[in-house]
């Protein structure tokens, strides 16, 4: 703990804390999207649990959920949540590899961030296709 007790002189670094000045690289975009998608899934937990509960409860409840799923606005929200899940899932797997120090260097980290998008977006489209059509 000695290092925390001795204060290093403050380093002069450029600060760009205005959001419009920061140009996030792809891994940065992935990172904030990981956080936003996680928070969105958290907020929708009761809605998803309610849909699951109703759909399993009775046949009437199942038909009611089916009716709700047929609404365009619900489909849009569900597609958004599905994308949130797929992004969180794929980006999370990438983070697990980074945690064990695999793919740490910048070109590899950028490449794996791109792969997350190339996998999560088609997976979302596939899931939407299976659910809605």
């Amino acid at each position, binding site marked *: 703990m000695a290092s925390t007790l001795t204060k290093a002189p403050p380093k002069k670094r450029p600060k760009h804390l205005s959001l419009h000045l920061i140009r996030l690289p792809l891994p940065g975009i992935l990172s904030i999207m990981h956080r936003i998608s996680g928070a969105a899934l958290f907020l929708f*937990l009761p809605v998803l*649990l309610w849909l699951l509960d109703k759909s399993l409860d009775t046949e009437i409840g199942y038909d009611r959920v089916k009716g709700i799923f047929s609404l365009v606005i619900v489909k849009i929200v569900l597609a958004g949540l599905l994308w949130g899940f797929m992004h969180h899932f794929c980006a999370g797997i990438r983070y697990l590899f980074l945690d064990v120090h695999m793919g740490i260097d910048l070109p590899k980290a950028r490449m794996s961030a791109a792969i997350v998008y190339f996998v999560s977006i088609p997976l979302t489209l596939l899931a939407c296709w299976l659910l809605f059509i």
Partner: protein
Amino acid sequence: MSSNRIITGAHYGLRDWLGQRVTAVLMAFYTVLFVVVVLVKKPIDYLAWYGVFTPWWMKVATLTFLAALFYHAWVGMRDIWMDYVQHTGVRLVLQVGTIIYLVACGMWALKIFT
């Protein structure tokens, strides 16, 4: 040293960080299991959909997944509150609210699968 600690801090430990990773792996395996079961059973009506969750192992797996999800969400949401909410009182309210919200979701999940 201890006087610098804040009441809504991160316990200064590895436990939650590791717990979030372990639950992530668990949930990833359940996701694959769920997709395989759905693709095999192709639940297109109520009885088939109900049938997805009738085997005891599917009930156990689903409840374990949901328990992992709620713990995972707690660690993630707490990280968000700690990063963006600097006022200790407000942060405490949000953290306690998050715990109540997730415990209530957990009780609901128990009700669905028992």
